[in-house]
């Protein structure tokens, strides 16, 4: 647990970078420091591991005043990742990852094992990469190693300053997904700096929105989107805040059972009767193993001899982990306007429709917050 109480930072030149900043990050929580450039996010974060000395106030980690600790010892107990990655160019990937274990004088074999474990965790093959140098890695791989390095000695707390900053949007999204997956396993207490509202919504359990050194609003992402405290928050979150709320969900959080699932061998006449009775415009066709094959529309059923011949194959399908904003753009490409959710063996899991999404957005708009905060990954 990290607790900041009335923290103030005034730089020697008189810049008031952080003003009366109080906040608590609970154990296992990922807290985003969000705000426009120069609002004091980095300064606030660096005061936690004392890289920047605070002017006044108190910072506690698990109830212990950080000023009472030896700064180097303190830092070895806190994972640290910076925006520019800062990998040591003269050391191999392995030596980079084991920087803190080395400082803590772990035995060599344990360091090696840890490096292998962490590389695997961030999705890199130890055989290939342990002996490489940073200059021999792609930008995305460097960021992964940066994340692995901050986990080096398995610290309970991580400070991350735009860890996925210098990278293209696609790789960035992938790294975010992977990191959330890792976090769901390791449950670290994390202070995470970003100026990207979308990243904040996607990653954060809590968001601390800052303006000119002050904490303006500290809430979970859904509350921030739905109940902006003032004009500044409303503007920062953006006019499309309702749409942004889509990022709070993944397909699996809101998908529904298909209204009607029919099998390849079913009799078209019977299917037609059934659809007429239930007033369905479409149904979903699967084979004997529940593999999704395509859509059946009521209109086509009239003259059909078999279901397979009138089936409309899906233009797109989606995985259960897909964020809702992405799923929705896919739906515009789907012939039926609906989206089948399938697992990696193409088993049909559920379906997304515009109605379902409208329901979700409607609820958000009316301020019903009970449905918020779908699981983060």
């Amino acid at each position, binding site marked *: 647990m990290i607790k900041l109480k009335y923290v103030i930072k005034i730089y020697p030149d008189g810049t008031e970078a952080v003003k009366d900043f109080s906040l608590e990050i609970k154990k296992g929580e990922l807290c985003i420091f969000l705000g426009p450039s120069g609002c004091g996010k980095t300064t606030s974060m660096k005061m936690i591991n004392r890289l920047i000395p605070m002017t006044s106030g108190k910072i506690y980690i698990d109830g212990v005043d950080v000023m009472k600790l030896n700064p180097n010892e303190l*830092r*070895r107990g806190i994972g640290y990742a*910076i925006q*520019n*990655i*800062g*990998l040591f*160019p*003269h050391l191999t990937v392995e030596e980079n990852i084991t920087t803190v274990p080395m400082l803590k004088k772990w035995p060599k074999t344990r360091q090696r094992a840890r490096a292998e474990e962490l590389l695997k965790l961030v999705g890199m093959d130890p055989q290939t990469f342990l002996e490489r140098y940073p*200059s021999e890695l792609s930008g995305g791989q460097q960021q992964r190693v940066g994340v692995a390095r901050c986990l080096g000695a398995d610290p309970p707390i991580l400070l991350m300053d735009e860890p996925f900053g210098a990278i293209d949007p696609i790789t960035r999204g992938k790294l975010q997904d992977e990191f959330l997956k890792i976090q769901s396993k390791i449950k670290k207490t994390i202070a995470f700096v970003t100026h990207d509202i979308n990243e904040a919504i996607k990653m954060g359990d809590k968001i601390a929105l800052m303006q000119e050194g002050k904490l303006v609003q500290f809430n979970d992402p859904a509350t921030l989107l739905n109940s902006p405290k003032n004009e500044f928050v409303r503007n920062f979150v953006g006019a499309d805040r309702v749409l942004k709320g889509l990022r709070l969900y993944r397909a699996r959080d809101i998908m529904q059972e298909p209204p009607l699932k029919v099998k390849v061998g079913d009799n078209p006449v019977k299917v037609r009767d059934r659809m007429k009775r239930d007033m369905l415009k479409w149904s979903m066709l699967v084979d004997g193993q529940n593999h999704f094959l395509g859509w059946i529309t009521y209109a086509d059923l009239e003259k059909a001899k078999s279901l397979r011949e009138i089936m409309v194959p899906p233009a797109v399908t989606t995985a259960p982990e897909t964020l809702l904003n992405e799923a929705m753009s896919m739906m515009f490409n789907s012939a039926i306007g609906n989206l089948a959710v399938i697992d990696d063996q193409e088993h049909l899991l559920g379906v997304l429709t515009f109605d379902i999404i409208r329901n979700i957005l409607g609820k958000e708009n009316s301020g019903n917050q009970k449905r918020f905060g779908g699981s983060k990954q």
Partner: protein
Amino acid sequence: MRKYIILGLLLGILLGLTIWMTSLGSVGIFKMAPPMKVLSATVRHLQIVEAAELLAITIGIPIGFLSTRRACRFISPVLIGTANVGQTVPTLAFIGIAGAVLGMGYKAAVIALLVYAMLPIIRNTYAGIRSVDPALKAAVKEAARGMGMSMLQVTAKVEMRLAMPIILAGIRTSMVVNVGTAAIAGMIGSGGLGELIVTGIAVRVTQLILQGAAPTAALAIILDALIGGVETWVTPRGLKALKSAQWQQ
């Protein structure tokens, strides 16, 4: 590969020349130095170079390092300026002055050599530390501090390591210069191969001069190659790539 063949050839010629001159026995009324004398002169030569070089490294690197610190920013231009200007003073003048001020002999020679050898080391240490891309350096130092390295560890494990290739290049230069300067130090009675050369010059016998000069040149080549080898060996692949990337810019 061609480089090594040429080097090997040159070395062969120089050593052959030395053996040939020594085998002459005498030229006219002048006796050539006997083989044992050549050998002991070579050892003496190495001793002078080694003593001066080790001292130059232990003094030069800290001076070069300190001149990059912000606290020293007022005296560092003077230091680095002196180091640069110092190198333009001809070695002969340098040795002459040392002999005049410190008297003749081994000690005076080592001190003269040490001062002279220190200059490229100071200069390269300074340049090496300063040449690391500031953005890279800031990021790397911040990461190092943030992970709990002490100031000393940041200096030793990060800053100096990044500057290492250029510092080593400085040591290599100073070593080669040193071998040559040590020959000139023969003038102030330091012993070593310079003594043979100086004697040869005094009596105007080319063979005698060659007997001292050829092994001196061979020594310079061998030491240069040796440190070059060390340089490649201790420079990690990651830094080589970084260096070549900087060259390309």
